[in-house]
């Protein structure tokens, strides 16, 4: 589903590359933690998958397509296969919960009928069935993250990328979010989660890829957080 072949990403300016000769393979339906200290290259790896940046050398394959040389106009179609969740939720404050979720469908041209069907289903999946009319600021942090996950999942993407999804949440709420991501993974969606939350990584044991100074230093099928930061 995601394959990096000797990928190096160097940003303009002096210093070492953000990613250095990284090769990795993530299969369909896997759940992978991407761990490492700040500046280890986790965010760059995620941005490469989203084709927000291109590798300096090497090749990136996502959903069966080599995306390095993908024409700009094809990138939106690629991103429809990828859902993204962030630490800071990134909800639209002037829209209700349901409108926030529907927004992801509206802007890619889904019909009103389809939106009316899929949005309530997705809100039910994330446990916010009765909160569609609420505004984001009326919700707790955990609930806001659930809205963000609903928005990322509403188009039923093949890949879900989560960048520190529990970073702003208390441990109990984080567990709820992890259960939800686990449920989504069970539907066959590949989940890649960058995290600093060692409690979560150790509790919900999955494959762990550790990056350090832009290199893969550990790739365990059923790993633990494994280092102190």
């Amino acid at each position: 589903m995601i394959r990096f072949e000797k990928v190096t990403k160097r940003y303009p300016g002096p210093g070492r590359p953000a990613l250095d000769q990284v090769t990795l393979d993530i299969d369909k339906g896997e759940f992978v933690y991407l761990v490492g200290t700040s500046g280890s290259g986790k965010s760059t790896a995620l941005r490469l998958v989203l084709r927000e940046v291109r590798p300096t050398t090497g090749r990136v394959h996502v959903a069966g397509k080599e995306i390095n040389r993908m024409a700009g106009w094809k990138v939106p179609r690629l991103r429809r296969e990828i859902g993204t969740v962030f630490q800071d939720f990134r909800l639209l404050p002037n829209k209700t919960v349901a409108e926030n979720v529907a927004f992801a469908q509206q802007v890619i041209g889904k019909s009103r009928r389809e939106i009316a069907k899929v949005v309530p289903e997705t809100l039910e999946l994330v446990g916010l069935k009765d909160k569609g009319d609420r505004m984001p600021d009326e919700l707790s942090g955990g609930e806001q993250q659930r809205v963000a996950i609903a928005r990322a999942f509403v188009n039923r993407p093949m890949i879900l990328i989560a960048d520190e999804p529990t970073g702003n949440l208390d441990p109990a709420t984080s567990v709820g979010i992890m259960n939800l991501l686990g449920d989504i993974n069970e539907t066959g969606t590949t989940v890649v989660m960058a995290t600093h939350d060692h409690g979560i990584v150790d509790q919900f044991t999955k494959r762990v890829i550790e990056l350090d100074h832009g290199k893969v230093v550990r790739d365990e099928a059923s790993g633990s957080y494994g280092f102190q930061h």
Partner: protein
Amino acid sequence: MQLRYVFTELRTGLRRNLSMHLAVILTLFVSLSLAGIGILVQREATVARDSLGDELKILVNLCTDDDPSHSPNCASGEVTADQQQRIEKEIQDNDEVRSFAYQSKEEGFEKAKETLPESSYTGPDPIVTAEGWPAAYWVTLKTPERADGIISALEGLDGVSGIKDQRKALGQIFGIMTVLKYGSWIGAGFLLFAALLQVTNTIRLAALARRREIAIMRLVGASTLYIALPFLLESLVAAIVGVALAAGVLAAFQYWGVEQALSDHVSFLPWVDWTDYTQALFGLFPPGIVLLGPALTLIPTLLLTRKYVKV
């Protein structure tokens, strides 16, 4: 594509940036009005030249049977074929002359009818008739400064009733028109540049106000066109309003300024009409305001949105 969303965004965008949009519209309106007036003045110069000849030309009137000039050159009455041949040869051989054209009595009379009051050539006993109108030569000079040689060579010839030096009468009018044309174009140029800057500022502000939405749209795979469409439509609305206001002002100028005032008071000149007005609106060269307005707003919007909403 869900156009409902696009139009909702358009409405929100127009409301949110109302003062900026008004500034763009007003600047566009004034600059396009000036540009349109510049085009009309240019058209007026063309119309006047077509009818009266341009400032490089001199008109050599030939004697008629009962010539009103009472010039001694016309002592023998109507110009004879011999006299005309000599006059033509003189013109042909003169090195100040670029080209010349013969205008028959009838052609001259038809042309004159465009600017003369109708009563002067209609009715049972008209003052002006084709028979009484002089045949003439239109002589185009190589340079407007050098005409003395040809004038002095011709004015003593038999059969020449008089020479009208267009440079004196028309030179001033064309001079004023040139100043007016370039003046309005320079003014329009500055204001259009101001409009361009205002459009870029408006887009920048609009992109800033929508940065969250744009970021999410990019992430969930909205196409660049879809993201850019509300911006483009906002610019288009501003352009349409600006163009409509300017077209109104130009129509008012054409109706009250040209038709009701100028053409009555300055009747020796033919004036621009509604065909020329249409040209000022829809013309290609120079571009009419209907082209100019949208181009000035849409092109910078396209360039800027490419930068701000790049996927």
